[in-house]
């Protein structure tokens, strides 16, 4: 079935991320000066303001920072309500947003902040694979 939800328009500065995603890799920007990973991708390190940045392959592991259950949506997402959105603390540092997989959206109290999650990718079109995060066994 064709992917029917919003597909990000790729920016000029994020090509390595989307190229990696197509190959199932979670590429993350890291500053070669302070060695910290930041998210979302910047033109300058938001921590030390160096412009010497590189892309590294992330572990694809993280933990749930917080979440919510969406009951009102538009477009393709409206066919999936309720679904769980979440912010993920990356193992490498900083935070990503996602729609969480492997959880029951009708029982939000069962979802645990701090629970481990792993990344997976869904092909939205030939140029775009979108990372989603799934709750993993501890």
């Amino acid at each position: 079935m064709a992917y029917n939800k919003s597909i990000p328009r790729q920016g000029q500065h994020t090509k390595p991320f989307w190229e990696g995603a197509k190959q199932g890799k979670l590429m993350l920007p890291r500053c070669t000066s302070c060695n910290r990973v930041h998210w979302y991708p910047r033109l300058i390190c938001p921590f030390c303001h160096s412009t010497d940045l590189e892309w590294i392959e992330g572990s694809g592991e993280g933990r749930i920072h917080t979440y919510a259950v969406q009951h009102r949506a538009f477009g393709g997402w409206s066919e999936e309500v309720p679904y769980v959105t979440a912010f993920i603390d990356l193992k490498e540092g900083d935070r990503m947003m996602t729609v969480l997989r492997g959880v029951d959206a009708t029982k939000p109290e069962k979802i645990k902040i701090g629970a481990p999650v792993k990344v997976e990718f869904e092909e939205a079109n030939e140029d775009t694979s979108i990372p989603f995060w799934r709750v993993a066994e501890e």
Partner: protein
Amino acid sequence: MAAMNLSYAAAIVGAAESNVIGYPEELTGEKVTSLQHHIEAIKNVSDMTGIPISDIQGVFSTGWTGELAEHLGLHPRYLDTTSVGGCSFQIHVHHALAAIHAGIIDIALVSHGEAGWSYRGAGGAGGGRGEVSPGGEMTGAYGVFGAPSQYAHAMVRHFHNFGTTAEDFAHISVVTRDWAQLNPRGVMFGKKQSPFGGPITVQDVLEARLIAWPLTLYHCCIVTDHGGAVIVARPEIANSLRTTPVWVAGAGESMGHQNMLEMEDFTATSASRSSATAYKMAGLGPRDMEMAMIYDSFTITAAITAEMLGLAPRGKGYTLWKNGDAAPGGRLPINTNGGGLSFNHSGMYGMQLLVEAYRQLSRTAEDGVNGIEGKQTEATTCVVNGTGGTLSTTGTLVLASDDR
């Protein structure tokens, strides 16, 4: 470098709204445009203060500044289009205070017009929001649509950090609705204004339709029309008018983030910093505040902000509403107009905060518009805090009455 103290360098000398706010089409059969809301409010504040529109030297608004000034036939010598969400109008007052203190202008107009209801439905559908920014590019795929879908994440984290519950926050909706019962201009004043109007209970809030768990409909602000304008002027002018001045004792602004992705602590906003600046300028603290006007886009916004303003301990903001302090007749009246939750919320609610704070501190809340017994507080100080974006930006004002 020591900052010059701007405290009392200017006053809000008048505040007015457009002629029909809330749901104009339902009340009069006609839509109102954003420009019309602006112009009516500006005319009304000019009539109220006796300051001719032609005397306005500085124009402050969100993005419309040039259009507005041209429409009014003005050639201002100070223009400010700061547009960082609902707190922009608090920030405009801060900037006007500085411009007046610096001697650049004597009289500033801060104006707002927003046909949130008349021209509703222009946004929302389709998703893919904010793809022009890298932050938007990396969140646009994930099915968040508008403010409630984002703010819900903050409430869940508040549960986790402080052991709070949706019921705790529901008291904010209930008490704010009680205030709206004193304000006929509020769209939730009664059944005549809206089928959803009239008093509500905690149970009503908890059982309302889910928008983004844990936010039900009644944890969320309404969507309405509004126009409002205030004039800020230097003391010599403020003291010569027929209106009662409300003094800007302190002002501050700050931001935490633009995208929620960058929100470091989901239970805190930059209001801790913007209020620290404002309190310091005023030489006053949270304990000196006799009322508060707090942006309540959602119940969680109001609760967190009360904590950031020092009105309640961390994690305990909701208790001000739950124990009745914030309610009509309470120790610390909060959101006496009925709030963004039940009075009016047009998209950017900061002007509504200013208009109500002016009315309360100038003793004109019983003005025949809000004229119901119990509406007027006796407060001589008020902390006003706007929050913009997704708990992103904040502007704080510490206002003082002329009789203080």
